């Protein structure tokens, strides 16, 4: 779900405060913009994964070799 920037800013503020991190208002604004982009990007992954017959498994930090 893609949120409005103001809603996101509130969520971000609460979320980071729980980790003891307090961004400035200016930083919050930029974070909400960038987080919105992250959430949009995640739709790309849904599209890739939707074509798989079986659920693609988690990347195991190993690549299939020869």
């Amino acid at each position: 779900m893609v949120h409005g920037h103001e809603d996101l800013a509130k969520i971000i503020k609460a979320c980071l405060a729980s980790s003891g991190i307090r961004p400035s208002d200016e930083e919050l604004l930029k974070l909400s913009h960038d987080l919105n982009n992250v959430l949009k990007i995640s739709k790309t992954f849904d599209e890739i994964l939707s074509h798989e017959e079986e659920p693609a498994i988690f990347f195991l930090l190993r690549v299939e070799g020869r």
Partner: protein
Amino acid sequence: MRKRDLLHLSIKEISEAIKTGEISPVELITSVIERIKHLNGLLNAYISVFEQSAVEEAARAEAEIRAGRWLGPLHGVPLSLKDVFYIKDTITTAGSPILKGFTPKHEATVVKRLREAGAIFVGKTNLHEFAYGVTNVNPHFGATKNPWNLDRIAGGSSGGSAAAVAAGMCFASLGTDTGGSTRIPAALCGIIGFKPTYGLVSKHGVFPLAWSLDHVGILARSIWDVGILLETIAGPDPADVTTFASKPFEAKQISSLDVKRLKVGVPSDKFLEPLQDDIKRLFWNSLKKLEDEGWQIRELDFKRFEQVSACRYIILLTEAASLHAHWLERNPELYSEELRHRLMLGLLVPSDVYLKAQRARKVLIREFLEAMNGLDLVACPTTSVTAPMIGEERVLVNGTELSVRLALLRLTEPFNALALPAISVPCGMSKDNLPVGLQLVSKPFRDDLLLAAALAYEEITGNGYKMPPL
């Protein structure tokens, strides 16, 4: 031979001179340290120099060689390390004041392996703050300057290593590569930058950026040098579960493999463009020479580079933030504004988005390898532009404005997410006398074929390391 020229020889050449006694390791390390003292004020390539221990190690190497106990081609050869590699009881900064006073109690596996092969560590090199960036403009340790033009960046994040190798301040260096951090500075400084297949080289004792994307990289002046360094550091390591128990890499394979009629895929313009005119011209000129020698050049049928980069972006944001969360809470003021922002953003990425990125990555690796069926290699330029000016944030690339970060990173980063071996080799000089890099990529664990192809590329095109005018 003049001392300056001596310091620009390859490891292959200098090791022969050491073995035969033509030059002593002590003389050599003394010359390297003099060169560092002469140039480091200009280039800011090194964060620390180990003058005393390096001279002592060289004296030991000299005695061993004289006594007939030559350990091999790295014995007595001065190397440097990006300041993320742990040396026992030696400060590691990772380019940040946050780790102030951090002196690891153990050595990185790769450091141990190089030391056992007789290499001498002359110092630790400057990097982008926590290796999280591609310019090497470090707010805490200063910008590393490009040996070809002091107003321009060396690239990063292994920029100190690239500048040091290019300028003859060591014979090779170890860097790291999470999105291009070895290949980008190598291209901008006119040397070779190589990252192996994910899992071929241990990362134990290397300060991480993003575990599932990080690779140890090699910066050198000849392909043979890359091969001998890789042979020394590659192989399984019980301390790093991501390493593969693969067949050990052997440098001699580089010159014995048949690389006469290689099949090379070139990504479509959608991925390659925009490119600086000089880069486009030099890239296609090089491919033409390879084609004339029997290599088959065709278009690579893979259209999902953008999605691969999206995976890398999310994975990098999340893994780096997880590592830095406690420092970010305690010492936010010790991060640059730019890095603090990226780390905060990473803390906000929902866990399902990270996991989906890793799952999608698996699908994309499979699809990319399918696209490589019938091909030996993929080729593309290493960067979209030559070295930007220090402090420049945006660049115009053939009419399209890009951030410097994107202009440098976008052609290298997919191959970290894809976990494939990749190398940047010199591809000539631009009209304003700046180095250009060409990138070759091979299939997993075909690092041998990749290096053999890079060697053939050098021989066919005549492109290779050139000494900068310092």
